[in-house]
């Protein structure tokens, strides 16, 4: 997995973490809602930030599949490959 993209994604996710979750708690397997306790409403904002940061566009089904950090990185990689 591309380390640079992983770090970039962590930077994006950081602001959405609740007070009691730190950026060190993020791992590849982290589930955004169940483990990182991110407000589900904010997932749409993470998607928009990812689009801006990687200059890609995510479809509705990509959003539905984006449950974990790993999911997000795979979707990003897929989009960047077809670009």
């Amino acid at each position, binding site marked *: 997995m591309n380390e640079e993209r992983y770090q970039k994604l962590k930077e994006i996710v950081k*602001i*959405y973490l609740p007070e009691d979750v730190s950026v060190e708690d993020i791992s590849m397997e982290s589930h955004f809602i169940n483990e990182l306790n991110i407000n589900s*409403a*904010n997932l*749409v*904002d993470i998607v*928009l930030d990812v689009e801006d940061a990687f200059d890609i566009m995510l479809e509705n089904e990509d959003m539905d599949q984006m449950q974990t950090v790993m999911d997000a990185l795979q979707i990003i990689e897929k989009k960047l490959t077809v670009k």
Partner: protein
Amino acid sequence: MGRRVVITGLGVCAPNGIGLTDFTRALQKGKSGVRFQPRLAELKFGCQIAAEPLVPDNLVEKYFTPLQLRGLNASGLVYGVIAGTDAWNDAGLKPNTGESPDWDSGIIFGTGILGVDKFRESIHLVDGQNVRRLGSTTVLQTMASGISAYLGGILGCGNQVTTNSSACTTGTEGILMAFDRITAGKAERMLAGSCSDSGPYVWGGFDAMRILPRQYNDNPTKASRPMSASAAGFVPGSGAGALVLESLDSALARGAKIYAEVLGGAVNSGGQRGDGTMTAPNSEAVQHCITEAILHSGIEKSDIDVINGHLTATSKDALEIENWSEALNRSGTDFPFINSFKGLFGHCLAAAGSIECVGALLQFQEKEVFGNVNCEDVHSEIEKHISASRIPRKTEKFIPKIIAKASFGFGDVNACVIFAAFND
């Protein structure tokens, strides 16, 4: 007679002062918050001046989390959260940090329209077929009740949390709604307040109605002239004011500082009948509202020693004075002191009632009646009813016992609240 209700906290984000210290000093010294607005000039407004709070970025960061600040583009929401949070702290209350809501505390925080700039952003995105780019907070920033919702979350209130809206009556009406809820025993304390957005999209409609002054663009601090013969229309404003209303029992039990007691008040409508229209008040209704407020408060007309008027600096000021004079059956030198703070910060629309109530209440604490500015030339129609000596042109030492505050709004709606110096 219901339970007694007192004011235990105040907060303000006004064009001429943010926070009680600066705002109090501004009212005492006659410091103006009216400024030239380059943006209104660029947009070819007739009136290119306005009064808006100057909120530094590092101040906003104290009230909002970095996440809340992302994409935040709702000025009224910023003003309201600052004023509301400050009032809560001023009352010696802390945001609820527990897992359970505070069932005894509620919020009535009004507005006319919220998040106008955010709404404009959304309109562009939607029209550009980019609805998916709106993000998660567009709704929260543009729903009218966004302000009470944000404050409700910050403070953790579990009683009624709502937003009222009645044009320029909003702030004063909210105080009476909060008062009713506490006297009815349904809440122990209520944060009451109101806010109004800044900017051309809020103020444009008033410019189009040609009710804003156009000849003071290069002399902004002189533009807002309540009760003056040279009054030329109201200066558009924005901001927020907030008050903590509390049952006397709760305030005493907490050992809280008490600014004043809320004796009562009245709200009504002129029904857009008689001389009332969508934009002009029905004098019969205004007088009825004042009379009802006095009756409801259990005081005599002669007990009122200070009035803080609605007095926007239009041709209707003289009519308002006549209505007060008729309703109180007092005239000449027998009339109470009267002031309008709009000379200093224009007409803050939905926020006017709450900001002005905060100012009116500070007069109890300061033992002063704050001065009026820009009315060296009191309108001759006003002097037919009251002595000009009742219109203090600068802040005077005075110990108010009972202050009446009224606000009137588009839609022919009125509110009048009666505050009294607290003594047990």
